[in-house]
């Protein structure tokens, strides 16, 4: 079964407005991104080797999409694959843990009781049923599936040490641009240490985040642009998900208007806010940016 079909046919997700559990039907932006992934990697091979760097506007559903992919692979795998998510703060970590767990339980509940949504919802909170699915379940930390030993665990980047030990099939850094530097370890050290838990050239490593100024995420973004690291950088601005009317409402919610391009960027360039006042006239730069061209020739001629 294809991963997208498995997710959409079986997984329930908490609705962003009502919190009710509803079928996880991909939004347009999620479908577009998924199509890109299928083009650049192999869906049949569980996106093996994916190295993704996703810069996006807020609440476009990238975390849920990747959690869904991780859990679908966990269900389908014959092996005890292990996935990890590092989030930027404790409450997000717990929320994502529960979301991933809901994906698993809704899948098995549907197998048990069929397509009736109410019946599925009743079953996924049944303790006896949960014991059948999970070999172990430590709330907010790790669950292990009973049928194949696959596991998913979560961590928060604010802890004093990064993840280093062991091997994982995939790691998701959620809002990694917002990982804090502690006095003991920097955000970048957490990321570098953790991503090396994925064996070179295999598995999945994903960074997805809104921007946060000129920090390690911007450096990584620029390196990916220059081809200095093996990540594919993707940009999904507000126009990918929101209508102009919705965007106007979003803007009205910001008292600090300068933050709008960071949280809901239109271009990747404007997402990375500077710490000081821009030196050049921004409208002039926008005009220049609108008129940049692709080189007719590029490269090194004497090599």
């Amino acid at each position, binding site marked *: 079964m294809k991963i997208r079909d498995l997710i959409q046919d079986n997984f329930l997700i908490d609705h962003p407005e009502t919190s009710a559990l509803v079928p996880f039907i991909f939004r347009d932006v999620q479908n577009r991104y998924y199509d890109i992934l299928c083009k650049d990697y192999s869906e049949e091979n569980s996106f093996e080797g994916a190295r993704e760097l996703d810069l996006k506007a807020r609440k476009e559903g990238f975390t849920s999409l990747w959690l869904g992919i991780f859990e679908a692979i966990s269900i389908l795998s014959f092996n005890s694959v292990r996935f990890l998510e590092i989030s930027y703060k404790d409450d997000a970590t717990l929320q994502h843990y529960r979301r991933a767990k809901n994906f698993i339980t809704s899948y098995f509940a549907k197998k048990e009781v069929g397509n009736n949504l109410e019946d599925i919802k009743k079953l996924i909170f049944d303790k006896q049923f949960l014991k059948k699915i999970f070999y172990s379940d430590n709330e907010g930390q790790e669950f292990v599936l009973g049928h194949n030993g696959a596991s998913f665990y979560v961590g928060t980047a604010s802890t004093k040490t990064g993840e280093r030990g062991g091997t994982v099939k995939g790691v998701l850094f959620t809002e990694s641009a917002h990982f804090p530097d502690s006095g003991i370890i920097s955000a970048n050290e957490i990321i570098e240490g953790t991503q090396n838990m994925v064996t070179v050239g295999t598995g999945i490593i994903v960074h997805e985040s809104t921007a946060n100024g*000129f*920090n390690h995420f*911007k*450096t990584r973004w620029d390196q990916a*642009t*220059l*081809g200095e690291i093996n990540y594919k950088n993707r940009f999904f601005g507000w126009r990918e998900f929101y209508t102009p009317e919705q965007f106007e409402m979003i803007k009205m919610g910001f008292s600090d208007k300068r933050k709008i391009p960071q949280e809901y960027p239109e271009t990747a*360039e*404007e997402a*990375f806010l*500077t*710490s*000081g*006042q*821009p*030196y*050049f*006239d921004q409208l*002039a*730069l926008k*005009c*220049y*940016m609108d*008129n*940049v*061209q692709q*080189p*007719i*020739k*590029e*490269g*090194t*001629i*004497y090599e």
Partner: protein
Amino acid sequence: MNKWRQYRQIERGEFFLIGGDCSQGGKDFNACQFMSKTKLDIPLVYHSRGVAAQMTREIFPIIEKIFDITEIKPMVALETANGGASEMDTLNVLNRLSKYSLFKMPSIGKTESPESKILGYVTSGGTRPILVGDGKNSIDGKIVRIYDKPTIKEMYAFIINKQGKPEAEIGANDDLVMSFNIVWQLYQICKIPDTKLQPAMRIMSPNLDPYSTYV
């Protein structure tokens, strides 16, 4: 990223100004903006990591080829910091065929201005505000056509810091911005030479592929 980015063909009769910012290696970049004073645009950009000597080695044959095409000697100025002064001397030694001119830093702010003998653009406490401020006026006024996206991206990250000094954001580079500022100074200072005085030298540089269509 490629070291050279060319945005249009270069034509006979164009006067080129070449402004460069040198690097001492590491994460810093060498950058050179090739501006056509005739067309008021920047059709060619050099941008590469490495030390200044590497840039000299790579831009030298291109500068000569620009003369071969335009038949007008381009004017070259590297910022003297970060090894730029010695690279200007190297370019002076290499200029055996006299295919380009080297910029001599004028005295700024003096009532008596003896002819300068310093090759390259000297950035100091006195000249930097002029260099950077004039560049801003040019950009804000949208005077020059710039096709190069990395240059504009660097300009977005050029800020006024908390002390009020214009500079690159922490973690950002300003090599393309500063090389633009230098080439804009050349634009303001250097006049288009009288082409009748320029001998149309047909001698090709020995290390240049004469069949290359580059530049």
